[in-house]
């Protein structure tokens, strides 16, 4: 008995401990009570992303970076692990390190450092296999976790329409019970009153005839401007990437700060200013605010997606150039080696003995390692994105708030109520930025295993920094229009971005040849050949034979057919269960009516119990249609 009690107590304490371990709960509660649930939903999303990134970081750190660091050959032992002689002088400069060149490039942070030996260390850790599998596992895990979150929320989607219960919802769901702060409560009362007044005016004005043709023309014009903006931004990015390639050919010392960071700055600035332009164009359209918000989100999404893909196209261009260059370097190396050996043998014949042939790794000519280049581009993009965000918050939110607060005393008009006043927290903009940053992480982490780690740092500091900025400089939104019923709208976008960002990576893995002198797959024809090699060497031969049979096209087609059938079957089952669910709900409502008319004390448990009784087949028969009343006779 004592043991059972102690065990129960231990379980309860453990549950309490688990609840206490959830990070940042107090911060989020404070934000919720001051800003309401929609702003807090951004921070909840941020915390969830932090959890996902933590898992990715643990995978890449413990299975890729740590083994190479502990058991791989140290820095300086191989050409791929050493800074070339030409760059040695500047390898440790801050400017070079900030660009992730020099010592940072030739470290576990990037793809190029890893050796292609099949096993390393005393445990015979298979590093190339682990590198490949961890990359695939990260993608698989991300898909799983996003899908799981979406299916959890699917019940929340009421699946209704926006306008049937407009006023009812305003009356019964506009007060946010989380509010615990008198200033916020005041704001909420004011916004509710304004909301009602607007709805009443809209209701009265609904009968007024609008000039359909003018509105259609204005909307067409607005969309035209939007297309122009999207096209313009795509072209700008392409031009910036081409220019950055030219700069890469030049001597780094002749370039100023802007030239070196031009491309990243252009992308970040476009992401900052184009949404404001879209907002401006939306003035022409005159939509209901909820619809206008959806259009805006759609356009920002298209902008960011377009930018990302133009960036990738430019990158692919660059990769192809590097692969061409590599062929030249390969040819040159054989020549260079032949010359060196000839020179060495010549010097050898003068003396009778000599040291064995040795070239210092720093002197060996290098191929252009395109994978490291890709990894570097993504890391630089992430870092510059972070800096732009923080600088924007500091200037746009903090300095503006300081200006409004302190200059209000000596200014002609009221700064706090008129222009510029304090900034509102832009939920959708921030969520979209978070989603697209995550897309870049997914794209780049195969080529730069350090990217999840960098992202963890970024999310951690973002949480504290943005929490502080929100509480200190922002005011709650005057009119709250949520883009999503549940969080499924944003999770859906995240899923789409995940799919779109893993496609280029998978394409690169499957169709591009790895560099010949850097990375864990060097010397192979394609990166996925590491799997075939592992099967040959590490598995017994009968298993290899079986697996080879399994990749028989006939079998693969059969498996695909079975999967399609399974999907169809599950879909049909789901539809059937939805219909049964609706049927049960209807029965519940009928029972409740019965309960109300029979004047029984209504309580949910009794209604549920009666429902179980009624679904008994006896009540289904037509002669028993008074079954409902009969049930209540069983109740005391």
């Amino acid at each position, binding site marked *: 008995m004592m043991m059972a009690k102690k065990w129960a107590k231990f379980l309860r304490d453990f549950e309490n401990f688990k609840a206490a371990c959830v990070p940042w709960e107090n911060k989020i509660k404070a934000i919720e009570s001051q800003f309401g649930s929609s702003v807090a939903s951004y921070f909840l999303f941020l915390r969830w992303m932090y959890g996902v990134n933590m898992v990715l970081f643990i995978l890449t750190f413990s299975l890729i970076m740590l083994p190479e660091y502990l058991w791989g050959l140290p820095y300086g032992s191989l050409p791929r692990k050493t800074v070339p002689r030409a760059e040695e002088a500047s390898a440790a400069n801050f400017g070079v390190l900030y660009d992730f060149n020099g010592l940072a490039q030739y470290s576990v942070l990037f793809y190029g450092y890893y050796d292609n030996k099949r096993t390393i260390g005393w445990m015979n850790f298979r590093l190339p296999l682990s590198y490949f599998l961890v990359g695939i596992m990260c993608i698989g895990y991300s898909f799983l976790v996003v899908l799981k979150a979406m299916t959890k929320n699917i019940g929340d989607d009421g699946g209704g329409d926006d306008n049937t219960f407009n006023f009812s919802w305003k009356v019964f*769901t506009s007060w946010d019970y989380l509010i615990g702060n008198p200033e916020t*409560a005041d704001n909420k009362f004011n916004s509710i009153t304004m909301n009602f007044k607007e709805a009443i005016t809209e209701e009265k004005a609904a009968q007024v005839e609008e000039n359909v043709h003018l509105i259609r023309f204005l909307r067409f014009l607005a969309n035209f401007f939007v297309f122009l903006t999207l096209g313009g931004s795509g072209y700008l990015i392409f031009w910036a990437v081409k220019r950055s390639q030219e700069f890469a050919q030049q001597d780094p010392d002749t370039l100023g700060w802007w030239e070196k960071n031009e491309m990243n700055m252009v992308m970040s600035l476009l992401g900052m200013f184009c949404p404001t332009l879209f907002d401006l164009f939306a003035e022409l359209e005159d939509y209901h605010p909820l619809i206008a918000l959806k259009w805006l989100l759609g356009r920002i999404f298209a902008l960011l997606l377009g930018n990302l893909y133009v960036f990738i196209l430019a990158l692919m261009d660059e990769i192809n150039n590097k692969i061409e260059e590599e062929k030249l370097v390969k040819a040159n190396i054989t020549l260079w080696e032949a010359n060196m050996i000839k020179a060495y043998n010549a010097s050898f014949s003068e003396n009778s003995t000599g040291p064995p042939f040795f070239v210092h790794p720093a002197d060996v000519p290098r191929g252009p390692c395109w994978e490291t280049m890709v990894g570097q581009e993504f890391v630089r993009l992430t870092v510059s994105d972070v800096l732009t965000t923080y600088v924007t918050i500091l200037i746009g939110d903090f300095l503006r708030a300081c200006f409004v607060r302190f200059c209000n005393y000596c200014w002609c008009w009221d700064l706090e109520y008129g222009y510029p006043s304090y900034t509102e927290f832009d939920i959708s903009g921030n969520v979209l930025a978070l989603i697209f940053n995550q897309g870049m992480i997914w794209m780049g982490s195969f080529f730069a295993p350090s990217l999840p780690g960098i992202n963890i740092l970024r999310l951690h500091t973002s949480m504290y920094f943005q929490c502080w900025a929100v509480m200190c400089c922002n005011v709650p939104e005057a009119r709250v229009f949520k883009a999503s019923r549940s969080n499924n709208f944003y999770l859906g976008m995240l899923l789409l971005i995940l799919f779109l960002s893993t496609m280029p990576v998978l394409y690169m893995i499957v169709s591009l040849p790895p560099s010949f002198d850097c990375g864990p797959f060097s010397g192979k024809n394609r990166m996925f050949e590491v799997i075939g090699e592992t099967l040959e060497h590490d598995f017994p031969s009968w298993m290899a034979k079986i697996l080879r049979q399994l990749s028989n096209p006939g079998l693969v087609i059969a498996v695909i057919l079975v999967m399609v059938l399974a999907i169809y079957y599950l879909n049909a089952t789901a539809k059937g269960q939805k219909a049964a669910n609706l049927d049960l709900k209807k029965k519940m*409502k009928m029972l409740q009516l019965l309960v109300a008319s029979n004047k029984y004390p209504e309580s949910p448990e009794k209604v549920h119990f009666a429902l179980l009784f009624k679904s008994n087949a006896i009540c289904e028969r037509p002669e028993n249609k008074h079954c409902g009343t009969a049930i209540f006779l069983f109740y005391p």
Partner: protein
Amino acid sequence: GQQANSLHTRAAGSVSGLHIFHKEGDHEDLAPQLVPLDYTTCPDVKVPYELIGSMPELKDNPFRQRIAQVFSEDGDGHMTLDNFLDMFSVMSEMAPRDLKAYYAFKIYDFNNDDYICAWDLEQTVTKLTRGELSAEEVSLVCEKVLDEADGDHDGRLSLEDFQNMILRAPDFLSTFHIRI
């Protein structure tokens, strides 16, 4: 778990203070009513509405009086520990939608007649806007609500009408929620 215990001790502490006050004011020989630390015998200790209404989670809520009345034992706003825990468990994140909808209906039913009639709606709207809407605007809003949600056309919202309407609302779960 721990949160509920701290609420319990907070409530217990304030009740013992109140009992001591009574004892001094009445000049009677009251046996010192110590607040029982052991609740297994279900003693009859009630926290008065004034204390509940001044809790930080509720003090800015225009419906706090109705919330206390709905969850209290006798409908007068004074709550026992069980009522208190019931209230927070229904308002928490984990409570199912149907349960929340049921209690929301009771909260907005000001005259406790198991229907939300036009008078109840007027009370709700007035509390929500702190009396800033004119009488004409309030009655327009109430008319629109009855138009939209009254399924059986009896001029008032039954529990079924209310649940039918509220369970489709996208914001209901996130706004009808108090976090401890």
